[in-house]
């Protein structure tokens, strides 16, 4: 059965390879990253600069941080760029990544309907803000997809000592953009990374209500995968990308990206 399956899948695969659907692919790496970096347009700005410097094409697969880890674990990408420092450190510890380096940061913000029924805009801290939402049981849309943003949001509730549950807390299991579309449609509060928010085009009643708390810091890290675990990967090229991101040139490229007059990511390579 397995052999049959193999033939059934392979014969057409070989045929398909003859048909020119394959883009010319010498010198590329696959980068598993988050939707926020892709949807904000950052990659569209920095990848051409990297290609100019090295001739290497970077193919971005933009998914949630949880799925990006899974892609890395299975060896389906050459390198990972995500935003969940605790998860990233565990990823290195488990031996999937060779190392983890800080690349850049931005921050999360609390967005909600403009009348702000929970009074989030007047909160003293982000803990206070989420407590106000929970106390009033105002609709809150959560990513619910184990992404970096979802992990950060769960951390907020935990810090505030709240177990979010009930009809007001809506776990969508969706990407950032889909969650924002839903929040806009149901006038709900939502925790979002600033880059996606600035790039987002369907805000309707939503507006930025709370920002600036240190707890809302959003750090991105670059993780080249383990050479031992996945010898087949393009480690040399991936390493070039990793080092370019951390170099002055790469850091300047990140700082130089602005959308609607605002800088979206702040380089902080260490």
């Amino acid at each position: 059965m397995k052999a049959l399956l193999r033939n059934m899948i392979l014969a057409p695969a070989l045929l398909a390879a003859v048909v020119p659907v394959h883009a010319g692919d010498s010198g590329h790496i696959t980068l598993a990253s988050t939707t926020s970096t892709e949807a904000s347009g950052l990659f569209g700005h920095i990848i051409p600069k990297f290609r100019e410097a090295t001739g290497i094409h970077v193919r971005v697969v933009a998914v949630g941080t949880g799925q990006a880890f899974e892609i890395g674990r299975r060896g389906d990408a050459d390198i990972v760029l995500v935003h969940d420092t605790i998860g990233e450190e565990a990823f290195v510890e488990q031996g999937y990544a060779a190392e983890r380096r800080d690349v850049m940061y931005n921050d999360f913000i609390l967005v909600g309907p403009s009348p702000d029924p929970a009074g989030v805009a007047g909160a003293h801290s982000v803990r206070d803000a989420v407590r106000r939402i929970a106390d009033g049981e105002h609709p809150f849309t959560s990513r619910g997809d184990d992404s970096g943003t979802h992990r950060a949001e769960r951390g907020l509730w935990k810090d505030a000592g709240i177990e979010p549950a009930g009809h007001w807390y809506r776990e969508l299991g969706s990407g950032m953009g889909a969650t924002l579309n839903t929040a806009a449609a149901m006038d709900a509060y939502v925790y979002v990374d600033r880059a996606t928010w600035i790039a987002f085009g369907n805000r309707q009643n939503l507006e930025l209500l709370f920002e600036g708390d240190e707890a809302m810091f959003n750090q991105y890290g670059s993780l080249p995968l383990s050479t031992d675990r996945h010898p087949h990967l393009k480690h040399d090229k991936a390493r070039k990308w990793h080092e370019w991101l951390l170099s002055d040139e790469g850091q300047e490229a990140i700082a130089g990206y602005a959308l609607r007059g605002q800088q979206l990511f702040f380089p902080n390579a260490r």
Partner: protein
Amino acid sequence: MENAFLAAFRLIVEMDPVLVGIVTLSLQVSLTAVLLASAIALPLGAAIALWRFPGRGAVIVFLNALMGLPPVVAGLMVYLLLSRAGPLGEFGLLFTPTAMVIAQMVLILPIVAALSRQVIEELWEEYREQLQSLGVTRLRAIPTLLWDARFSLVTVVLAGFGRASAEVGAVLIVGGNISGVTRVMTTAIALETSMGNLALALGLGIILLLLVATVNGLAYVIGETARRRLG
């Protein structure tokens, strides 16, 4: 809504090279998938129609059920198969157009096989005595039956093409929606929606509909011309 039509109109008029690339890839992937799947599924459907074997009923029910296979499930199966950690990992096909062709084939194959089985079985009832009196074996009868049923089978193949060009779940998982490499119409629509560019997303949707309508229109014109020529 009017913004969407405006967006679609502008995209078509401007012939944006990125859009042209996405449209070309969409057509390449879906047409390749439908051709390869049909090459397997049409004879398969005919064989199931003609031969009687134990468990035949179960095979037919299974094929019919697979017509409703959710694209995400098909995508996930192909993902696990092609992933580096999977049985076909060493070919490095994940996140390539080839992977997308395979995933769409998995979706189309049951549709074309199940529907062509139906068509051929009905035709076989009609032809059976005549063909058998001429001493034609079942194996020999297959090409004849497929040829005589070709007009109905074109519709069957188009149903497969419609499924392939409309689905997003499978190609998103196995293709990765990589800009310029594996981004097709449906995944581009999903991406623009997630960025809140709803008018642009709907505009792309209108273009996709026009494309599918064009392919169907071409098939119709070719079929009608052939039918008329044959009298």
